[in-house]
């Protein structure tokens, strides 16, 4: 332990402070706040009630009002710390609020009603989690259904993406045929066509094939990614041709060469593409929003959108469900992160 702290607090200036020590600390701490701050704020805010979210200044931790059952009242009453005119403080329960005054009662003597100016009282709160933010959407607002739809779309789209893109990449990297470079150029060229340009024609195609309001209408148009083909092809170029020739001498069919030799060897690149594909499909919003118009087919991202009404935005639900939305992506990253750097470095793209 002492070695760890020794390592962490080691300074260039020895016992003193060199200016680079200060810059380093400021930089690292600032960077940490910049990176983790929003995520932490999101998680902690997702556990706050709607009233607390509207508060200014915002609090770091989620709090809930302490309540207490008082004799003679059906519901538990919220507790406040009240400052009397003589400076003493006492804890009172609020019955109701009238204008700038609150009608309060001492929990120990519920018969006496006391009028208090609302400026003289502070709500008594404790750290507490508004778990209802999660329970409500998941149980009654179909969010489990949306979650399942998202998982289905992401998994299927990623699997099909990996299969088709790797087959295209195999052909483009290992077979010498007329027009190969032209095909590659066209595929890479489509990188420059944004979705918004092809939105209307794509909609017509999906509509004509009867895939509107079906999850396959979200999955199929997105599986052929130029980035994926390019990334996998660049990686497959590094697999020596002699391996394929050895397999050919070993009576392997072209499909076996692809399935048993090239695919296992391209695993790092496939992992990178899998990460990309999962993130893309999971975070996809615009295309699912257009294709899916029935509530039971919504994905998470489209479902989140339903909380943002024209007049009223239910921030507490949006924040909570955003956390739910983030979790799978984080998990995928944790498991596949070691492939990212090697794969990206190998393919030479970001």
């Amino acid at each position, binding site marked *: 332990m002492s070695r760890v702290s020794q390592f962490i607090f080691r300074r260039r200036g020895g016992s003193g402070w060199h200016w680079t020590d200060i810059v380093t600390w400021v930089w690292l701490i600032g960077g940490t706040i910049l990176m983790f701050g929003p995520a932490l704020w999101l998680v902690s805010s997702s556990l706050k009630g709607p009233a607390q979210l509207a508060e200014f200044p915002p609090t770091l931790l989620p709090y809930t009002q302490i309540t207490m059952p008082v004799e003679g009242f059906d519901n538990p009453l919220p507790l406040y710390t009240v400052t009397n005119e003589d400076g003493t403080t006492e804890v009172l329960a609020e019955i109701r609020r009238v204008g700038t005054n609150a009608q309060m009662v001492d929990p120990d003597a519920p018969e006496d009603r006391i009028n208090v100016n609302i400026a003289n009282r502070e709500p008594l709160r404790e750290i507490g989690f508004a778990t209802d933010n999660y329970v409500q959407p998941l149980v009654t607002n179909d969010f489990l259904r949306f979650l399942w739809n998202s998982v289905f779309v992401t998994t299927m789209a990623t699997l099909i993406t990996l299969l088709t893109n790797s087959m295209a990449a195999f052909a483009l990297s290992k077979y010498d045929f007329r027009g190969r470079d032209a095909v590659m150029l066209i595929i890479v060229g489509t990188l420059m066509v944004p979705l918004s340009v092809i939105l209307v024609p794509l909609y017509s195609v999906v509509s004509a094939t009867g895939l509107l309001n079906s999850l396959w209408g979200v999955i199929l148009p997105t599986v052929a990614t130029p980035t994926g083909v390019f990334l996998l092809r660049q990686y497959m170029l590094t697999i020596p041709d002699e391996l394929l020739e050895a397999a050919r001498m070993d009576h*392997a069919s072209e499909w076996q060469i692809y399935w048993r030799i090239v695919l296992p060897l391209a695993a790092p690149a496939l992992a990178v593409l899998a990460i990309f594909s999962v993130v893309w499909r999971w975070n996809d919003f615009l295309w699912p929003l257009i294709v899916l118009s029935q509530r039971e087919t919504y994905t998470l991202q489209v479902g989140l959108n339903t909380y943002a009404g024209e007049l009223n935005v239910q921030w507490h639900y949006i924040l909570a469900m955003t956390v739910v939305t983030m979790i799978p992506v984080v998990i995928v990253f944790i498991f596949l992160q070691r492939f990212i750097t090697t794969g990206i470095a190998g393919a030479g793209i970001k």
Partner: protein
Amino acid sequence: MGRIALKDIRKSFGGVEVIHGIDLDVEEGELVVFVGPSGCGKSTLLRLIAGLDRPTSGAIEIDGKDVTRVNAADRGLAMVFQSYALYPHMTVRQNLSFGLENTRMAKTEITARIDDAGRMLEIGELMERRPTQLSGGQRQRVAIGRAIVREPSAFLLDEPLSNLDAELRVTMRAELAQLHDRLKTTMIYVTHDQVEAMTLADRIVVLRKGVIEQVDTPLGLYNTPANLFVAGFIGAPNMNFFETTAQGGHAELPGGLTVKAPGDGKITVGIRPQHLRLADDGEEALEGIVTLVEALGAETVVHARAVDGTGMVTVLSGQPGLHIGEPVRVALDHAQIHLFDADGQRIIPASG
């Protein structure tokens, strides 16, 4: 099984012809070595025989059957690649069994063959390892093992020893020779190393620029090279060549030494460094100035410049004590000279 015949094989890449009509017969059980400088087409020729490339014209026959249009896998040949080309994601056992499984061979038969090969090549303990966990020599054995389990009619080896260090290369060379003795299978071996070629081959095929220069046994090549290229390529250090003119049955070499030469006109006289010796006083000799002395102990390689400026290398036994800049006189063994005409072809010396 294992007779291979090449009939007027030609191969072009794009518009460039790299193999210019090769005719060759490889007998059953023979170890034939293709040797030549890099770019001579020896690896290309091997790939044509393997079926990895198709010849532009000509025919390849194995055991009398035309296989020119037959797939690589169906020719019954096995190839050992220069880089070994072991499948990195499979264990040694999987590497060996991959080709057999693809032919839907029975499991017991596969196991038996792999165990046999494992014993023969002493790789039995390595079966569950992956290629990256093996040393160069072990990988080499596995690559050979992968060829052996197929029980091919002929082995094709593409510079199999070039990735090994010098010491291991000598051991593996000896093992390959033993392996060939035991299996008695036809082998075609490609190398640019003439020592490998000389020690392993039953017959050597010397290639240059896509043409066969000469096909003969190793000693046949050494003793009667058919042309200047073969003469210069086989033997180390290289043969000494002196360009001169034959006149009236004799030709004069720098320093006044004359040798018998039939006919008239320009000729090249070749003499191996090992066939030169220091001249006695008064004897006819080649004269030159020593430019470099490489003392190896048992023998000394003396580089000299003859009086007409031609480079001249002599291998002298022992340690003759010559120094750079000194004049040197060497005599030659007249029975050991090689004569080549103006086109570089061997002149058959008239008897006597």
